[in-house]
């Protein structure tokens, strides 16, 4: 069965302290890996799609990378407004594009 595992579950950083979030997956025939940001009480906000190993995408202080088994979301010099839950998702196999979501990493950035 396809699985998506995110770590750590929670992460506390000081403003400016860079770090990385991990998303490991087991799926046959990867057809994309998605990263989302979710603020409390809101729906997930789409950030990135990565399609192949070695691919990288950047948006402001965030950079997502992909290998054959996992993806990293690097946060460089985070600010308090980066505090949110970050979700990754992988489309199910067998011809379905419906994503399976990980449980997310709750990030808190202290000023």
């Amino acid at each position, binding site marked *: 069965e396809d699985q998506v595992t995110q770590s750590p579950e929670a992460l506390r950083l000081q403003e400016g302290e860079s770090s990385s979030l991990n998303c490991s997956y087991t799926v046959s025939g990867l*057809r*994309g890996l*998605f990263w*989302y940001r979710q603020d409390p*009480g*809101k*729906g*997930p*906000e*789409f*950030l*990135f*799609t990565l*399609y192949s190993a070695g691919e990288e995408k950047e948006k402001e202080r965030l950079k997502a990378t992909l290998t054959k088994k996992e993806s990293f979301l690097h946060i460089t010099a985070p600010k308090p407004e980066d505090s949110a839950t970050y*979700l990754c*998702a992988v*489309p199910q196999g067998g011809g379905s*594009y*419906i*994503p399976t*979501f*990980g*449980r*997310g990493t709750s990030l808190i950035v202290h000023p």
Partner: protein
Amino acid sequence: SAVISQKPSRDICQRGTSLTIQCQVDSQVTMMFWYRQQPGQSLTLIATANQGSEATYESGFVIDKFPISRPNLTFSTLTVSNMSPEDSSIYLCSVKITTGVLAKGQYFGPGTRLTVT
């Protein structure tokens, strides 16, 4: 991208009653999805709603409990029937954007926070 709105944004309901959640998209989309997100959990897909056909339900979800309508390409409703406190959750509407065979991201509505007492 797509802009998605949901009504109501939140509600408190008594057990045994039903609530219908509306989802409106600003563009025509083929596939719409309904998710549930229980406290501290990730997103669980309830069903896929395609216009002109019956919704497809995931394991553990049935039409009698979560009837779905999809009257056109920009609108869908999800009803949570005969509610119990275990149905307390955030319900999210989502649409999928694709480019050929590649899956792009899904876009989500703001969610409906349901509390059943």
